[in-house]
């Protein structure tokens, strides 16, 4: 992060050492309100680096709102207030001195509906690097585009038509393009808000495989409605209900031996 807004770095380091794990983010007593409506209610959890953390729960349970807090996308929404704190690498991202625009360049996000810009495939991936002045020479930019597309597993399919419009790609390709666009500015965390909900099973499988590869270098938070998907791709799972974090733990435990009755009800489909 920036060198301003250092908050609690010492306690963060202590925690990191004491637990002897690779903690990426600490969320503490996070609550989100839309006007008066409470969407996320007092959630605390730790996110490990280079792991996939899945958020599951019924629609409207606040899981999307929750991950949108991590790159402060909720700032865009009027009447939305966030309470509590989120530390990423020891920096309080809601500290007044933290610039949310800068923050978002470090924390990428992939959305539910593939949203490539109505530009060429090349320009889509080059958008972020150009914006932040990462690559000034044409050659460097070409390399970044190729590298990002390769990492997103899309380069082979589109290398002959980089200048075609991205809108002509299939849904699955568009979503992988969005992932390439996200990693083009090398964020440290990637947030995925139901990235496969608009895709068919084959495209979903491709994306899941991609997530498997990406987690070697990125910390990933994924919101999903698909329980099998959460079980397949994630190390940790968090179950949300009515804005509350009901249960959070190893994916294996959550899916085989959940502590809470509500969790069991949801994962076995006997919800409600």
């Amino acid at each position, binding site marked *: 992060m920036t060198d301003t807004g250092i908050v609690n770095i010492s306690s963060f380091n202590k925690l990191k050492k004491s637990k002897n794990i690779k903690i990426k983010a600490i969320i503490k007593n996070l609550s989100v309100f839309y006007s008066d409506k409470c969407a996320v209610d007092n959630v605390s959890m730790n996110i490990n680096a280079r792991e996939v953390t899945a958020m599951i729960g019924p629609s409207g349970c606040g899981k999307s709102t929750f991950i949108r807090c991590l790159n402060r996308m909720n700032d*865009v929404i009027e009447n939305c207030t966030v309470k509590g704190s989120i530390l990423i690498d020891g920096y309080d991202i809601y500290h007044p001195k933290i610039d949310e625009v800068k923050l978002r360049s470090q924390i990428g996000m992939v959305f539910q509906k593939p949203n490539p810009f109505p530009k060429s495939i090349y320009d889509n991936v080059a958008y972020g690097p150009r914006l932040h002045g990462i690559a000034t020479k044409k050659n460097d930019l070409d390399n970044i585009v190729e590298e990002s597309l390769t990492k997103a597993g899309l380069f082979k399919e589109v290398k002959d038509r980089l200048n075609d419009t991205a809108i002509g790609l299939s849904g699955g390709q568009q979503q992988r393009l969005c992932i390439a666009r996200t990693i083009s*500015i090398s964020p440290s965390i990637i947030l995925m808000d139901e990235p496969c909900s608009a895709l068919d099973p084959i495209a979903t499988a491709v994306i899941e495989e991609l997530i498997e590869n990406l987690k070697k270098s990125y910390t990933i938070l994924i919101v999903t409605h698909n329980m099998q998907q959460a079980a397949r791709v994630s190390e940790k799972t968090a179950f949300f209900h009515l804005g509350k974090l009901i249960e959070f733990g190893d994916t294996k435990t959550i899916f085989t031996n959940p502590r809470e009755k509500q969790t069991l009800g949801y994962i076995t489909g006997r919800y409600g």
Partner: protein
Amino acid sequence: MYVVIAILLFSFYGFYLGKKKSANLVSNKVSELHSTPIYHGYYIFLWCFVPSLIVLISWQVLDNYLIKSLVLNLVPGFETLDKGNINFVFEKIKTMATQETIDPFFYDEQLIPASKKYNWLTKISNITLFTVILSFLAIVLVYVKNKIQAEFTARVYVEKFIKTILFMCSVVAIFTTLGIVLSLLLESLRFFQSVSIFDFLFGTHWSPQIAIREDQVGSSGAFGSVPVLAGTLLITLIAMTVSVPVGLFSAIYLSDYAPRKVRTIMKPLLEILAGIPTVVYGFFAALTIGPFLRKFGESMGLDIVSESALAAGLVMGIMIIPFISSLSDDVINAVPQELKDGSYALGATKSETMVRVILPAALPGIIGSILLAVSRAIGETMIVVMAAGMSARLTANPFEAVTTVTVQIVTLLVGDQEFDNPKTLAAFALGLQLFLLTLFLNLFALKIVQKYREKYE
């Protein structure tokens, strides 16, 4: 009058009948019908209403014409009357026939047989019309009623009828436009018979005088449209310089920067500008802005006349701001939130997102709004009549008085004019020129949009 009431009564009765009968056919088990009862009702209603309305209207047109010719034959010395007098005589006959008391101005002994004939003919005509329509309605009711069966596809027919009505409405608009263009074209051709097209298009001298006597001084008018067209373009350019930035920036502010509360107040306020009559803008330009600019110019050492292109252009620019801001605001708002989110999530600021993502995606709509504004500016008349002056001078200096195509059309056609000399016909040529100008502008913009458009769906 009675006929209309009869038609309406029959039609509504037909509607009721269709509804009732179809429901009774299946003893109110509506699911056994092909179409729900209300469609059977509409079906009969349309069969009663539409044809009788057509008969009624065409009857009125024809019978007026027929009666007139029949009656006028009875007028002594009819062959010697000219067109204006014929109409006057016919009015006389009508008044004599319909009024109980005798109006001395409209009374003429010679016309008594004609007025009697008029009375008789109208009566006959009305009775015939009434019988024809009533019998038609009766036949329709009996015949169409029998058509109603459980499997009768009334809904399909009604939908077809709706489609036809919609189609005809769009055709009306197209044919009206075609008619206008054609009349412009024909009158312009007449104009070009007396003035060469080359002189009109490239001549730099505009002074549309036509001599009344052969030996008058300056008897040959000059019809070079270049100074007039240049005036139009100059004022349009000034107007666009004001309205495009202001309109576009306010649209951007309203759609993406303004808090919702500000937006709900500001947008209607801006649209009020569009509701001010242009004549009000006109005297605002002529009485306030013009003198202000002259005084301002004096203090700066500039020579600005009271009726300047600048004053007219500025006020016109203000007038068309809402066209640009309101339409652009709508298209900017129509850009999906996902695209904006995608850009924000990559660490783009609001202005970066606006310039790189939203504006390219909204480009066709924005160009469209600007075009609409240009067309408005080119065609605007009142402001320039009042504030831009009349002198057809070829100049690019906005501080001078200029004249525009629309102003010239107005001055050519004001007052009693005969449409047989180049002076009045020139108005049509100017109109055609204006029309072609906006048409090509539209085509040009369409091409631009197709080339640079970033299509998001």
